[in-house]
């Protein structure tokens, strides 16, 4: 069906700048090679192709980063991003390698009197792809630091199909508990952890489920920021049928990723994929955090995302929907559209007003 392929290419090419199209098409192509029909995943090739960056203790554009192993038993690593520290007023000239030294100073310091947000970020990749040190996510997290004057903690959660549900959620919750235990992440007169859970695609899904677990553990979350969060269900929705294959994503690949993540034998109405579906839980009356949910109008799973927003509303939860009609998946990866800039503003406002 060469004709429809051409149409598809033209449609998606018209929807995004050319370099964005190249970036996302590159992922699409590579990912097509990594998913095997039998449900296994070509992890070696995936890691070979993935573009990674090292943590950098020297500030770049005002942001420095370092990695920390927070759970040896699962090799759980987080990458922490911070704004450049203010030089030691005592003796700025002679402070040893200021950035690196300040990292270690800050780790054992007391809570800061000036409040700052901590954003725990879960990268996307449909539960199977990418890592905290993948370049596209390193870049995004750095932006969040500058945008919100936040400390960002990017979680390198375990991925499917090697690690299915609930491993990613467990890792997310481990990171949250770890953050709660770091005095240096607490701030303000009340020395609180002002934590936001955020993520894109599968990361958005993880953020939601970690938030639910947080409620159960009595941890207060200041807010959730979900970018094109990944949800699904057994039924085929109108948006899925209309947009299948048109903007980089196919129903077939969505099905594959759910099959790889969900427990064997489960269908897509499992609460992990469909939190307000037939097997969902009732959030009414529970202190679920305020949410900012961003949905791209050219994302084929938007019906499920919209259903999620509806579900939160029905449970009397505070949710703000930002619907970008002409946006595709991945719009937040390159700062070259209005979608990018306007959504970043929304995030900035959301964080500052809820911190």
């Amino acid at each position, binding site marked *: 069906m060469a004709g*429809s*392929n051409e149409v*598809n*290419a033209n449609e998606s*090419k018209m929807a995004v700048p*050319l*370099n964005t199209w*190249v*970036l996302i*098409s*590159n992922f*699409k*192509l*590579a990912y*097509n*090679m*990594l998913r*095997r029909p039998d449900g296994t995943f*070509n992890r*070696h*090739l995936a*890691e*070979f*192709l993935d*573009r990674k*960056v*090292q*943590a*950098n*203790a*020297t*500030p*770049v554009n005002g942001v420095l980063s*370092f*990695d*920390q*192993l*927070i759970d040896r038993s699962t*090799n759980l*690593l987080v990458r922490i991003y911070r704004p450049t520290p203010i030089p030691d007023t005592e003796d700025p000239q*002679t402070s*040893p*390698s200021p*950035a*690196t*030294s300040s990292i*270690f*100073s800050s*780790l*054992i310091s007391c809570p800061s009197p000036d409040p700052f947000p901590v954003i725990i970020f879960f990268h996307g990749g449909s539960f199977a792809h990418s890592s905290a*040190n993948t*370049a*596209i996510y390193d*870049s995004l997290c750095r932006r969040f630091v500058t945008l919100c004057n936040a400390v960002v903690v990017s979680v*390198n959660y375990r991925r499917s199909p090697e690690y299915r549900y609930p491993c990613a959620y467990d890792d997310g919750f481990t990171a949250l508990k770890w953050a709660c235990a770091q005095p240096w992440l607490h701030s303000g007169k009340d020395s609180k952890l002002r934590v936001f859970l955020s993520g894109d695609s599968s990361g958005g899904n993880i953020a939601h489920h970690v938030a639910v677990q947080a409620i159960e553990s009595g941890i207060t979350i200041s807010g959730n920021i979900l970018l094109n969060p990944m949800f699904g269900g057994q039924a085929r929705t109108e948006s899925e049928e209309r947009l*299948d*294959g048109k903007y980089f994503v*196919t129903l077939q690949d969505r099905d594959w990723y759910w099959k790889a993540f969900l427990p064997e034998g489960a269908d897509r109405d499992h609460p992990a994929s469909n939190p307000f579906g037939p097997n969902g839980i009732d959030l009414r009356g529970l202190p679920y955090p305020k949410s900012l949910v961003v949905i791209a109008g050219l994302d084929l799973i938007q019906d499920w995302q919209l259903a999620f927003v509806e579900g939160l509303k029905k449970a009397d939860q505070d949710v703000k929907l930002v619907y970008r009609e002409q946006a595709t998946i991945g719009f937040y990866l*390159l700062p*070259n559209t209005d979608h990018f800039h306007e959504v970043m503003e929304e995030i900035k406002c959301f964080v500052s007003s809820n911190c």
Partner: protein
Amino acid sequence: MKREHQEIGGDGGGGGGGLTGMVGGGKGKIKEEDDEGVDELLAALGYKVRSSDMADVALKMEQLEMAMGSNAGAAPDDSLIAHLASDTVHYNPSDLSTWLETMLSELNTPPPPLPPAPADRHLSYDLPPAPAPAVSVQSSIFDTIAPAESSTITTVDFSAPPPPSARPVTGPRVSYGPTETPSDLTGTRERKRMRSSSASSSSSRGGGVAGIGSVNTTTTEASSISPAAPGPTVVIVDSQEAGIRLVHALMACADAVQQDNMKAADALLKQISVLAASQGGAMRKVASYFAQALAGRIYRIHPQQDCSLDSAFSDILQMHFYETCPYLKFAHFTANQAILEAFAGRRRVHVIDFSMKQGMQWPALLQALALRPGGPPSFRLTGIGPPQPDNTDALQQVGLKLAQFAETIHIDFEYHGFVANSLADLEPYMLDPNRTGGTVAGADEEPEAIAVNSIFDLHRLLASPGAIEKVLGTVRAMRPRIVTVVEQEANHNSGPFVDRFTEALHYYSTMFDSLEGGACSGGGSGGAVESGAGQQQDQLMSEVYLGHQICNVVACEGAERTERHETLTQWRSRMVRAGFEPAHLGSNAYKQASILLEFFAGGDGYRVEERDGCLTLGWHSRPLIATSAWRLADAAAR
């Protein structure tokens, strides 16, 4: 290539290198190939695409998508996808244009019918996955073989002092033959006939996949990703407060030393020893070594005793390091992969090993060559090493063992050892077959394919101004087909002392943590099963091995400071300046290295990464060593 600035870190002076960020950073950087017009947004995300090529790259993607049938409504072509995923060797994914071209060219050659036999069959010859017994020098293979009769082993000593009548020698003096030469090994030998092969096997399937990787425009990563010098990569594995205070105190002490505030430094040293005593594991050991090195620097204890090792002891320590953790195995394996690919189809090959030591790298390569389709080449090995203090001919011994091994696998083998105080003493004519008495190719025979190999040795040359340039010039003059370089992936050579100290502290903390945490699964040697005590000794000796490096980085300066590690980015600049271009390592080498790691080290925190056609091995998110391969930049080389 035009040289735009002075050698980096070449001055042996202390602390004042001051060229941090110069290489691979902003101004002053060598313009490589063509990094102008690269799309900046994509470059920041790890992809190098020229803006002018963007539309063409998009077109290639569309073509591939159509072929793969990966859009809705089209039946996906599973066999093609499987072929691209499993059989195709991918190189340098940052260069999208070339990556796509490689795959498109695969389309022109129809893939084999499904199913291919093993899922990971590759186009190029690969090393046998588990060469464990052959690799360990300590295994019994060498001890039970009868001496080879068809190999030649000679040792040439460049370090012998000149006769009294000669004026002070600037160049090396050549003396032929060791004092004790087994009589059955010297003298002329017959050239063994090569086993004939019925079919040429050197062509690779498929049109577009180059055996050693395509010629890519190479841009230094740092130029596009970040203008500032990449700082230390910090991975905190121990979050306990005492551990953090310890690191902080060490850095403060280094700072005090740099400020020449010895009183404060001394006080801090005492604090450090108290803090270190309360620590356990890797952090305590690392802190002790760094504190010791700082003390050496503060009190001007001449570190020669501590920091320099005689080569025999150094070799022993390195062997233990080899057993304990996968770094050296990875280095050998990946370098061998590049050499194997470069030798594809060549009937006469010559490896020049700058890092001969115990020759542990070579049995695996010999084995792979013996197994390659079409049969092995005739193999010449030139091993270079330092003089031994007790005048034993270690190079000779190693050569003998390798010859014996080669005999058992029917490889025509020739060995020459060269003793040299420094690689800079070498001149091309010394390694010329005519000169060393080896067999010269007849008029009709193809010239030998040469590989030059260096494992953790090139950085030592940075301690003497001009040395690295000379050595690279010598290498170039030999017209090698491939040059393999493995180096520590760290900048321990530029910037003020404090920066170097901090970098080293984070580097070795990560390294020591890997020794501790990386399941000391007996080092994985297939032969004798290591006892607990044996493992412990290996680990201890490995720590001593690394401890000497720490001492050298921290306490030494000038010509004594030989552990002048530099990053891949910096080495790339040097190699390009010296007239080389990258020969990329591909997804097959990556995959096999990863699998080897799982075998030897139980996975754990070790990570293999691909960067700009090179492979790195690291612990968690911190690359620690990097393997790169190079060939001559001019077309005549091929």
